[in-house]
């Protein structure tokens, strides 16, 4: 899925996802810089803080758009199963980690990592689901 684009919908989707990821990294640096140099307060500080999250929400929206646009129902089904696998994986890990932090004083996990971890599990799920159809 990542390296060979079979159709325009998929092509558009992958490009959009990479662009959103790039914006997230960029906005993270910008936000950190703004906070260090300008020390914003009040509403402005919240807006700057949220800036890096906007491309992530964009990426999620684009994923939904791709699911609606993709005409190949098999490809669509593969992605849906991957997303569900990612969901199960991330919920299990985050819950276990959360209780370990709360009870056993494990190191805290920054909430922002929930999203990339989700895709990690989705990727693993994709591999498992795809292998069934070899």
């Amino acid at each position, binding site marked *: 899925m990542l390296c060979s684009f079979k159709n325009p919908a998929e092509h558009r989707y992958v490009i959009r996802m990479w662009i959103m990821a790039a914006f997230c990294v960029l906005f*993270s640096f910008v*936000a*950190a810089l703004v*906070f260090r140099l300008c020390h914003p307060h009040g509403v402005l*500080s*919240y807006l*700057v*803080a*949220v*800036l*890096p*999250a906007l491309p*992530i*929400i964009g990426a*999620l929206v684009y*994923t*939904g758009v791709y*699911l609606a646009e993709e005409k190949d129902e098999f490809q669509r089904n593969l992605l*849906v199963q991957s*997303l*569900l696998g*990612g*969901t*199960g994986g*991330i*919920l*299990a890990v*985050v*819950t*276990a*980690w*959360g*209780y*370990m*932090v*709360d*009870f*056993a*004083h*494990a190191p805290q*996990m*920054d*909430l*922002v*990592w*929930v*999203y990339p971890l*989700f895709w990690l599990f989705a990727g693993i799920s994709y591999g498992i689901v795809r292998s069934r159809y070899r």
Partner: protein
Amino acid sequence: MDCSPKNPAARRYQYRLFTAMAFYIAFLVTAVWAFSRYHVTGALAYLLAVLPALPIVGMVVVVGLYLAEEKDEFQRAVLVQSLLWGIGATLSVTTVWGFLENFVQVPHLDLYLVFPLFWFFVGISTGPLKAKYK
């Protein structure tokens, strides 16, 4: 999803979910009690901490089983859609909150709350979804 489902897959699903929920409450109470009563450290602390997370993993498995067992493809599709909306909203919220926590002063969102948050979003998505198919 109504309260007296007619088909065996749905009935099994509700029964299993209820069982997992019961174990979750029992394990959580046990963990809270053990940690408040005794000074648990090391590997035992981690094992005890993970205890409440196990029924959560169980619930994830139960949902997966239901999706595999349910013969009514429409009901399956509606649940899948609500799960996808749920994870989309959850990932958005955790990412926004994660960046807020990094830059400004907001109350910390405990990791183990992500799972109930997910189900909340799944729940509120079923309304619009059912309306869509009326």
